[in-house]
């Protein structure tokens, strides 16, 4: 069981949360100009990285807020937690390969 530090409620057990997939995926500005392959990549394809991974979580049974979590997929260690709309903290960016 992970202890996830919700940016609003503090450390709570994983069972209160729900994972929402990779973070920082932006909807393309002009989908009509994209090839089917590019559109499929946006819709369906996600990184499957070993190491620090940026993902979205929601505190579903708590404050019901979304936030970002940087989690090491190899060790399950949570490296950082930061609010929606903000960028990952500088201290971890060297460990993450952004797309």
């Amino acid at each position: 069981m992970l202890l996830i530090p919700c940016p609003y409620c503090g450390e709570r057990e994983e069972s209160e949360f729900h994972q929402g997939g990779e973070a920082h995926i932006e909807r393309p500005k002009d989908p009509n100009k994209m090839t089917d392959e590019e559109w499929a990549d946006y819709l369906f394809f996600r990184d499957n990285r070993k190491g620090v991974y940026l993902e979205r979580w929601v505190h579903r049974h708590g404050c019901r807020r979304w936030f970002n979590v940087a989690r090491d997929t190899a060790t399950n260690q949570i490296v950082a937690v930061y609010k929606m709309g903000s960028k990952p903290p500088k201290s971890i960016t060297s460990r993450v390969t952004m797309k």
Partner: protein
Amino acid sequence: MANTYLRQTPLAHLHLDARAANEAADATTGVHIGERLLLGMINLRGQRSNPDFGPAVKKVVGAALPDVNKTSGKPEGVHVLGLGPDEWLIITPTGEEADIHANLEKVVGEFHTAVTLTGESMTVIRLAGAHARDTLAKGCPVDMHPRVFGPGQCAQTILARADMTMHQTADDAYDIIVRRSFAEYVWTWLEDAAREYGVRVITGLR
């Protein structure tokens, strides 16, 4: 014939009054459990970043807006639970919610807010006694040790897989706010969990 609306608590069908009359508490009772009857509830959303918002609400409600997982006001009167960074639950004695709701709508209308009456969809189960905390801890993932969770704090979490909002009202007393449709399940779960400590029903809680 027109049907008149009979307002009943979500646990009325368990006939708790009759049970309380038949089973008196004694010194061996470790947990007292009862339903707080028909409290009013108002869910308030708003932006605290606006410095005028908090004071405007306080003027109507009589209690300040608390931080997340904190509360303000007295549990017997109008009190406010901090549910999220921009969400609060105002709990009022029976019948006081309509006026507060109407006044809030008037006063906070100028802000970016939502004010919703939610009391009918919820009920409050009071758990008290020396083993109230042990009982809750059996089904709740929140660390309730006194060094991290004490009177005046609240948490939205899970109790035996059901969503609940927990408010510690005193050293050994908790208000458990659950959805109406979960009330019977949570009640029977709590009674079962508390059985080993000696459990008695209390009634007439307001």
